[in-house]
């Protein structure tokens, strides 16, 4: 299964589930929850952290945090 860390810049996806419960509580309150559409908007110069567009705003998170977010690519 793909995680948010596997996305390429500009790619869109849906959030499916989380593998880290503690992180999921934080991500959900930031609007990043299962079913939500997200897109990878950019990464910092050395590939980490990532910036994703979600619910009309931009959220930054570290790569290993992104790896705990399971996604499904938008066909």
């Amino acid at each position, binding site marked *: 299964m793909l995680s948010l860390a596997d996305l390429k810049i500009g790619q869109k996806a849906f959030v499916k589930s989380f593998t880290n*419960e*503690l*992180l*999921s*509580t*934080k*991500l*959900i*309150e*930031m*609007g990043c*929850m*299962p079913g939500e559409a997200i897109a990878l*908007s*950019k990464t*910092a*110069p*050395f*590939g*980490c*952290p990532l*910036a994703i567009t979600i*619910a*009309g*705003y*931009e*959220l*930054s*998170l*570290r790569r290993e*945090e992104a790896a705990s977010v399971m996604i499904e690519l938008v066909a």
Partner: protein
Amino acid sequence: MPSDTKHTHLKIALLGNPNAGKSSLFNGLTGLKQKTGNYAGVTVDRLEGSTSFLIAETKYTLSVIDLPGIYSLFPKSSDEEIACKTLLDPKEKIDVVVIVADATNLKRNLLLATQLIDLKFKTVLALSMMDEAESQGIKIDLAGLRTTLGVDVIPMNSRKQVGFKELKAAIVTAKISDSFFYDINSPFLNKETSYVQLVSSSLVDGKGTSTFENADKIYRFNTINYLVARYVQSPEQLSRKATTSKIDAITTHRVFGYVVLLAVLFLVFQFIFFISEAPMDWIESAFLTFGDFVRNSLPPGQLNDLLVNGIIAGISGVVMFVPQIAFLFLFIGFLEDSGYMARASFIMDKVMRRFGLNGKSVIPLISGTACAVPSIMATRSISNLKERLITIFVLPLISCSARLPVYTLLIAVLYPDSKFLGVFNSKGLVLFLLYMLGFAVTLITAFFLKRFVKVKEASFFIMELPVYRWPQLKNILFMVYSKVKVFVSEAGKIILAISIVLWFLSSHGFTETYKELDAKIEILESSAATQENKVELKKLGSEKLEHSFIGNLGHVIEPIIKPMGFDWKIGIALITSFAAREVFVGTMATIYQSEDEQNTEGIKQKLLKEKDDQGNLIYTPAVCWSLLLFYAFAMQCMSTMAVVKRETKSWKWVLAQLAFMSILAYASAFGAYQLLS
């Protein structure tokens, strides 16, 4: 006030997401009627303000608490926990909750809003950034929102002071909403009877409630999606975000991003290092003039001396920091308010993390080259507790501007003819080396520290990259004002106390010699100020210092500092400069009876000639290097200690830092002396 007017007092809690415009609203509501204090039980800053107004013959006084920004009622950091606990504390007796929600990002902001409505306080929803929402083409059906949420919804524009009158009116007539947004079929509700009890018990338990927490949030977002679809019209492509993306293309670019950051850091550095120099000089000379005035207008004696050399000098040492603190926070305010700070952390996070630091550590660390005090206060913006503590711990290792006079004097003694290897300017080269050494040791220490520092808080780097906005000068000035006030009142107390203790130790003695010297000086001071008398006074002053408590202490610690190559005279300077490094130069001038205290050239000549009992030179390169390294790493700054105590809220960190830096300073000075002599 006429006797027939009623007087009603209401306590208001302001809550909202970070970046939702809570502080603009708080400042707009209360103006300068603000005070800082601590929360009950925990020593975290608490900002309270008040405002009074008349509505329909009734005088209302609102006391407003500005609570830390939160995303939901389930706290993820200690700041957030305080916000939730304060709100639910029955002792706080909060009458009305004002929710601040960003109109340009209603969906995420409504999560907290609906949770707060379910707590069944009297509630008002303030929609901030309405001007921006309008310019983005967002249309909000306020009447629809009011009906569904069951609370008054007030559109606001703090920038233009729009909506405050309406907000005040809404606060005094606020009611408890009869809508609810939690899942009444939730299995978690079996045990508890209301949402408030559910949230309160999860706050007490802390862990193990994430299933309920997530279920609650997802349930709410489903409702919110429906609400937003029904009452909010927003265009698909937002023009404002396009501007943000264009700026981001530069500020987060792999080359230009760092160029911009470097330029910003350079500007900050210039301001706190050079531009605050002039105001600091004014403050210093103003205090000196005032001190002279007091000295001459009061009869000479103990009280006079305490006032001038203890208290006035101590207060001057506190106020001296104000320009640097103000300039640094002015800059930080602009960087935070505009949205750039988040980008700076974004591009620096990966590099800084290797050293246990955070992307947000960069600005405090660079500002540390000017002064550690405002820089430590600036670490507030680092939300990750562990990374913040490490940043605070290593910050004083960076060579600050107070070390410069010490470095300058010692380098002048080390290389009197100012040339090194024939080509380089020795002063510049050694200074450069010392600064680089400071940075290197800072990073190495942080690197090792990250293994040892354990904190309970979970570590996230999940943060919003807000859209760029024009910073609001008024808000920034409020922040600068409160930072300066907090420093002067809190750290100032400790600094003043230590100054007085040091004054006492250096101006009192218990030996007979001391008393004789004191008597001689008194006689000389009252006689004619001839050139001869002046020279004699200098000599006596030096001897008096040698026989004071501090002088005795210098002798006592000689065996301890001997391995670093220091004699008891340097010992005295080490003790007096414990309060502030730059005092070293002045003390050396007194001890060696230099003709001119301001001029390092005079002290340099004396030091170059100084010999021990066997006729060997004392200030050999080995001793100079040893002293340089000692001052590079030793704490020797009570203002830093006072501010670390304030920011970490514990003496534990202060003592650990003092112990670590002392050992590091001793070891490197010892190493340098043994190696070179």
